[in-house]
């Protein structure tokens, strides 16, 4: 009887990957693809060495160097000793254990969540993990993808499985037509501002509705990417023709007849009619406007034309102290607007918004214009392939003429592990995913926004409503 029950796409994928379900134990979940990088893997490889075991299946493991790499002079040895050591350790570990590494200089190198999809490694119906919370990005293809810690990286390297309790399910449905100047980054910032930075903790989210269906794969990835910013274990979008067209012909995607067979299988994935979710939320796309964050967690967001709430407007009394601490850090007054606020830096990059479509969006606004004198603008492509494509399309010329600095791929100022840091006290409008205290460098202040909003801020030198520009 239970087999007849309508299932969500999440349940279909999860249940198909349970190797063992035992009373009182979490599920042993098989992982189809494991992405690794230099920061969260060294201690896991050490663990394998201590136990004297090999990587369970190297063909399901892909490595790249992204978090801790310089974005200038990538052909030279890394200057910073600790960063160099970490990248060299990844090289040594991949060689010793036989894992494919897309190292600095390799044409496939880039941010792990950008290269997986563009190489066709990320496919519908898969389970995927990485020692990085933004692994949720891959959910855009209709897969169950989530971030894990290093002990879990070791589990997956050793056994290709992870022990996990099945999360609850949440459906977020967005219908209607998006307004002018509103892009997928605004959708996800809007959702998080509605449900808070912990609103989806314990849940796996499925995004549905015609506003989601109308989005490109790049735009869907931006949404799934930030699922973790509302605490969700992951977020996914059921695959459709947009998904299949994106995957077709990519390097590691099934080819020819195998592709057609795969598509037939992928078409079975979408949630069954009548499938039940633990929570369902619905929003109207027409209510969404260009968004910006004002505080120190991604839930502290608002319409760019709005004003910051006052202390009295907070729902919970217990939130007041944290709210005040946050605005104090940001150097902002409760109740004040952000429009016209001068910014010092513009960062266009990260696994959220550094795909070719993001760079095209920025170029479309910037073409023929110059950046404001008070801002420094960094454009960091998500991968070597994105960089190559940008050069091919002449986007580099547009950025150069505007006074933007186009650098080489990496995570860069999203988390400031390398040299790319926003200085103390400075404001940065950023296309990345986190506005935490010190995230972009000690005492840095971040406004999260879409690539369009970041591009107009680069031109005007201040927080601006993109709709005045297009």
């Amino acid at each position, binding site marked *: 009887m239970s087999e007849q029950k309508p299932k969500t796409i999440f349940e279909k994928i999860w249940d198909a990957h349970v190797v063992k379900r035992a009373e009182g134990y979490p599920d042993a979940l098989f992982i189809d693809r494991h992405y690794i990088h230099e920061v969260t893997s060294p201690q896991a490889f050490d663990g394998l060495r201590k136990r004297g075991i090999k990587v369970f299946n190297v063909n399901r493991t892909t490595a790249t160097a992204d978090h801790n790499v310089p974005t200038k002079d990538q052909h030279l040895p890394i200057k910073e000793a600790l960063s160099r050591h970490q990248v060299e350790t990844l090289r040594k570990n991949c060689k010793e254990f036989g894992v494919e590494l897309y190292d600095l200089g390799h044409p496939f190198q880039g941010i792990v969540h950008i290269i997986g999809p563009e190489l066709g490694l990320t496919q519908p119906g898969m389970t995927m993990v990485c020692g990085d919370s933004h692994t949720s990005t891959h959910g855009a293809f209709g897969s169950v993808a989530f971030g894990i810690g290093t002990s879990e990286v070791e589990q997956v390297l050793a056994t290709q499985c992870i022990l996990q309790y099945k999360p609850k399910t949440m459906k977020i449905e967005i219908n209607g037509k998006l307004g002018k100047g509103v892009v997928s980054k605004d959708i996800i910032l809007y959702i998080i501002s509605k449900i808070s930075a912990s609103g989806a903790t314990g849940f796996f989210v499925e995004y549905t509705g015609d506003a989601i269906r109308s989005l490109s794969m790049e735009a869907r990835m931006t949404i799934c990417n930030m699922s973790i910013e509302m605490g969700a274990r992951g977020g996914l979008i059921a695959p459709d023709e947009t998904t299949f067209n994106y995957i077709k012909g990519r390097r590691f995607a099934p080819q020819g007849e195998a592709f057609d067979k795969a598509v037939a299988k992928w078409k079975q994935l979408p949630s069954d009619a009548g499938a039940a979710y633990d929570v369902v939320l619905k929003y109207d796309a027409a209510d969404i406007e260009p968004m910006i964050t004002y505080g120190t967690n991604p839930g502290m967001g608002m319409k760019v034309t709005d004003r910051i709430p006052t202390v009295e407007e907070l729902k919970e009394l217990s939130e007041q102290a944290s709210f005040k601490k946050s605005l104090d850090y940001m150097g902002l007054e409760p109740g004040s607007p952000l429009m016209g606020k001068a910014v010092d830096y513009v960062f266009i990059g990260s696994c959220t918004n550094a795909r070719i479509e993001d760079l095209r969006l920025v170029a479309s606004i910037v073409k023929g214009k110059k950046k404001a004198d008070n801002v420094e603008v960094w454009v960091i492509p998500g991968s070597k392939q994105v960089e190559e494509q940008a050069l091919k399309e002449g986007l580099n010329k547009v950025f150069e003429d505007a006074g933007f600095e186009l650098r080489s791929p990496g995570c860069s100022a999203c*988390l400031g592990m390398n040299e790319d840091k926003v200085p103390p006290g400075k404001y940065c409008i950023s296309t990345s995913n986190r506005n935490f205290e010190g995230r972009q460098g000690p005492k840095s202040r971040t406004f999260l926004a879409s690539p369009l909003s970041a591009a107009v801020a680069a031109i005007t030198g201040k927080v601006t409503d993109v709709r005045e520009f297009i």
Partner: protein
Amino acid sequence: MSKDNFTILKSTAVPLPVENIDTDQIIPARFLKATTREGFGDNLFCDWRFDGNNNPIKEFALNNAAYSGKILVAGKNFGCGSSREHAAWAIYDYGFRVVVSSFFADIFKNNALNNAVLPVVVSDKFLQSLLSSIQQKPKTEVTVDLLNQQISFDGQAEQFEINAYKKECLINGYDDIDYLLSLNKEIREFDLAH
């Protein structure tokens, strides 16, 4: 990594009444360059503990001589953000064995449990009461009894949830890999079939 066995802990506690403490605050990204698990405690809450010249910031709880102990008590949504297990390593390395909050982020919770740090989820009311007791009387002794799943102080007590498997792991110092390695044959078969 199997560590110490955990059954019952009696200790004073350190209050940190801030909500949404993300893992970038627990251990900033610039300290993630190490390739071992040790030594992260020195930089736990680094940017809240030290000013730009590396001098301790007096008002911060970890620098307040009145507070000490193996239990950290923090505001809701503790450990949100990055999946970095370094946050759990830093908390362990500093000497904490329990973090009490009214809500934890999922990945942090797993990471803590995998590193012999017990996340104890309590009600908002209990949390506020515990925080104010510690602030008024820093020597307040808190008891965390894993066997009976109970946290208590000053005559107040509350039960907490933990799943049976993770409880067993903590009590006996087991880890997940031991269990998964025992499934090797089934996993091989599954891998071949997919």
